[in-house]
């Protein structure tokens, strides 16, 4: 079982860390790596115009690309696979990597968090009643 550096606690949730302990160090998992991006220079005080949004996207993209270049050697060292060519507009990149590699990524200064690529589900209960019919 891999051991987890306590400094990584702020980057890997205890729940994900616990799941990783069930895997062998060489087993692979699919994760979302949230990269350190340049924070916005000032607080957003009003809704962004189209131009402001584009500027924010550009700044985040550039910042995330720099961070990605920093973690690429880690991904390679741990036999990982980058699942997208570029980081997305949230500064994240999907990666398939060994559990050891997850820990190594979390130790990098340019990584803000590593989260498991877990399933998503719609949040509703039931279709209670067919409301109204209309002949189409």
């Amino acid at each position, binding site marked *: 079982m891999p051991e987890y550096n306590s400094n990584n606690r702020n980057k890997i949730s205890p729940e994900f860390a616990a799941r990783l302990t069930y895997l062998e160090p060489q087993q692979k998992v699919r994760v*979302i790596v949230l990269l350190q991006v340049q924070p916005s220079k000032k607080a957003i005080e009003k809704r962004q115009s189209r131009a402001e949004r584009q500027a924010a996207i550009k700044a985040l993209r550039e910042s995330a690309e720099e961070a990605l270049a920093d973690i690429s050697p880690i991904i390679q060292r741990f036999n990982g696979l980058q699942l997208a060519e570029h980081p997305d507009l949230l500064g*994240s990149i999907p990666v398939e990597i060994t559990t050891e590699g997850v820990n190594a990524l979390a130790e990098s200064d340019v990584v803000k968090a590593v989260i498991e690529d*877990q399933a998503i589900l719609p949040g509703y209960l039931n279709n209670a009643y067919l*409301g109204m019919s209309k002949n189409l």
Partner: protein
Amino acid sequence: MVAVLPNQKIHLIQPRRVEYEALLEQEKQDSLTWGLKQLEIPKLWETTKGQEINVAVLDTGVYGAHSVLNDRVKEFIIIDPLGRRIKAEPAFDCGQHGTHVCGTIAGGQDFNGVAIGVAPQTNLFVAGVLIGDTSLRTLMEGISWAIEKGADIINMSLGLNYYEPRFAVVLDILLNQYGILPVVAIGNENHGNSSSPGNTYNAFSVGAIEKTGCDDVDVTFFSSGASLVFPGKEPNGLVIKPDVVAPGAQIYSCIPPIKHPKGTFEYNFMDGTSMATPHVAGVASLLMAAKPTAPVTDIIKVLKETAHHPDGKDLRPCNRWGHGLIQPDEALKALT
């Protein structure tokens, strides 16, 4: 020996029966769903109907040709389980959930004149992120697409498989880098539970209320709500969820047409915090349209502060009502 307990009889407690026919009749008379009536939405329509606000809906898709959506769906994309964007024409729903959610946000009037949507002039940008065995990767790509399309609000009536507090990083970027308001369902796991991403400390999460007898409302039995305690992690050492509540049971909205022996149905009732979330997203859209310069932090603040809690302002937030039932008209006044 600790205690001796009598062998008591147990009895079945039957849930209250919902009279849908009566509810439909009432909504027809009011020309409004009970949710819109409860929130006094027509008062806000005197100011705005949400024009020029972009709401992204990340869901099962949308049946864009539904008459009640009347060209509200401006763009549609499928994000597949590998995170690829697939253009699809016409917009479709792999289930009913996404169409129902879209109807509550921006639907017009049904064929009986019942208004179903909170912000009927708001633009919808819909990404099908719940088609197939999708995962967080799909959701992240859907959010990226929404950012690119100029979303002001993102409706997420969905949940993750297990607790993931680090999703806060994503919400932080949306709020502080892009000025986008994410509105997230708190989940249907009942009181004492909650689901991610709604239970992240910085999520604006929504629980559900239902109509009870005598024109009253209460939090539904299924609506999640819980507190997470992290000693020494102040200022986020205590996370109390949900943040607010909104109508989320017996919600009448549109669905893709389905054939049935009794006819073709294009509307139905659904229950869930998924249905409460679009009420709040729609209200946020009205507030943003009315006050175009208001930052999202102010929108969240007024919605929480003006919310009505049955026990009063001093005893909130709690894990049933959060800060309370949103009061859109009061929130608009507070923004002024």
